[in-house]
């Protein structure tokens, strides 16, 4: 496949040029999303983590690697091209044989421990779901905000298989006073004083049928970099809650504290049209990020691509917080008129929904705008809804194709 060969080719070139500074950076620079901070272009490179294909390296340690646009041409993202995101740099290789998850907390009547085998003995469930970093597209914020400066590629869609979190919680005897369920992973900070990454979700979300402790991703064990041997899967919600290498699950009768719950991962109250609220964590001004906003991405072409005059097929993906995509609208006249794209295979309400649209390109500049609409009637925004952490960027794309 052209895409793959191109990626490998780029990485080979990168390795050869590894220590020559700018030339090196430009190799990945060409693949960066337009609009990210210019400084990113001086450090981003195509590099392969062990077991992965070359991805766009934003930072080495902790590893933050995003998938190039072309990876999103299929509704299932291959494991070895799935993005990687960590906050903290002490990431152990977890041994599946000795691996255990402790389930307890003051909301559990009878704390238990589960091995990977125990987990696999529970009834298995599958869900195809988008895992998107809360900060996906942060790099496109205007004005820019600090953080990992992701372009379009801090997301992926996989078929996750595992035990239902609610079945596991039931084994530990959930008290009715439980308001949140908190997760900790085997990874931790490089320096003791850095707060460990601990996240909680409301109990109603924890006991939804689709919320899993997954040990398989697209029919394979999870890659190390995506949470081996097991991770939490919270379909519809952003990646921050999908704890990798999960080793502790605590049922809580009081809100989980800590840096990564507050002030991190918050959006201003009332700014986004979201349905899911995390009320036990809400205060007067901020609330935890919850479900993903409805969004889409053109994956057939990059902005500025050359096409031949005549019929052009534009395609891409659309997704939302789990209500399901009802339509994808495309405009080739700058937003004056819109037509429905053809929707592709439906892998479920949490999955990427492929779409495609044919139009006749005229000689010169053509523009293509896309707007996805979900089953709640929510659509993408024409203007950025600015927020200090750069979350929920679902600005309609408007790309130029040159014929």
């Amino acid at each position: 496949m052209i895409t793959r060969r191109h990626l490998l080719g780029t990485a080979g070139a990168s390795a050869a040029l590894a220590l020559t500074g700018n030339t090196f950076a430009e190799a990945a620079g060409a693949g960066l999303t337009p609009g990210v901070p210019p400084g990113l272009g001086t450090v981003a490179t195509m590099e392969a983590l062990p077991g992965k294909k070359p991805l766009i390296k934003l930072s080495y340690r902790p590893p933050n690697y995003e998938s190039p646009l072309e990876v999103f041409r299929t509704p299932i993202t291959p494991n070895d091209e799935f993005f990687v995101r960590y906050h903290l740099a002490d990431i152990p290789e977890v041994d599946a044989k000795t691996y255990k998850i402790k389930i307890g907390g003051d909301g559990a009547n009878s704390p238990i421990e589960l091995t990977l085998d125990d987990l696999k003995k529970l009834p298995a469930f599958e869900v195809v779901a988008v895992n998107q970093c809360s900060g996906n597209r942060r790099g496109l914020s205007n004005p820019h905000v600090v953080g990992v400066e992701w372009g379009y590629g801090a997301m992926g869609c996989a078929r996750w298989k595992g035990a239902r979190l609610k079945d596991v919680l039931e084994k530990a005897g959930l008290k009715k006073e439980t308001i949140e369920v908190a997760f900790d992973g085997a990874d931790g900070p490089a320096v003791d004083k850095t707060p460990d990454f601990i996240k909680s979700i409301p109990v109603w979300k924890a006991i939804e049928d689709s919320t899993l402790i997954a040990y398989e991703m697209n029919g394979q064990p999870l890659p190390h970099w995506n949470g081996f041997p097991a991770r939490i899967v919270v379909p519809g919600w952003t990646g921050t809650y999908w704890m990798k290498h999960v080793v502790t699950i605590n049922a809580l009768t009081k809100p989980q504290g800590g840096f990564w719950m507050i002030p991190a991962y918050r959006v201003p109250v009332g700014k986004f049209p979201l349905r899911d609220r995390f009320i036990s964590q809400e205060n007067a001004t901020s609330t935890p990020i919850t479900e993903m906003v409805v969004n889409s991405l053109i994956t057939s072409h990059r902005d500025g691509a050359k096409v031949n005059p005549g019929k052009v097929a534009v395609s891409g993906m659309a997704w939302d917080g789990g209500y399901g995509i009802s339509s994808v609208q495309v405009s080739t006249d700058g937003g004056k008129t819109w037509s429905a794209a053809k929707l592709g295979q439906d892998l479920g309400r949490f999955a990427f929904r492929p779409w495609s649209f044919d139009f006749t390109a005229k000689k010169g500049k053509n523009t293509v705008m896309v707007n996805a609409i979900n089953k709640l009637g929510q659509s993408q925004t024409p203007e950025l809804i600015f927020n200090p952490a750069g979350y929920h960027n679902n600005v309609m794309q408007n790309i130029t194709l040159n014929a």
Partner: protein
Amino acid sequence: MRVFLIAAIAALIALPAAADEKPVQLKKAPGLDKVEANCQACHSLDYIPMNSPFPNAALWDAEVTKMIKAYGAPIDDADAKAIAEYLKANYGS
């Protein structure tokens, strides 16, 4: 020589999570030594250019403070000041 030196410092401070961590060369200017000595215990230095050149002086001050207060970076006041000045001069707006 420089490359070797940074690699050596990085190796002393922390083990890279990924086998292939390559040294990230920041701009050579006064204060770089302080940045290299204080800013790569928890993450590689690519975090700095990645977040540039948009931060203004106040934002770089706030970032250095955040590393110390929120993330527990053990950096004394004099070094913190030198680092902030370096960042403003080389990676700021």
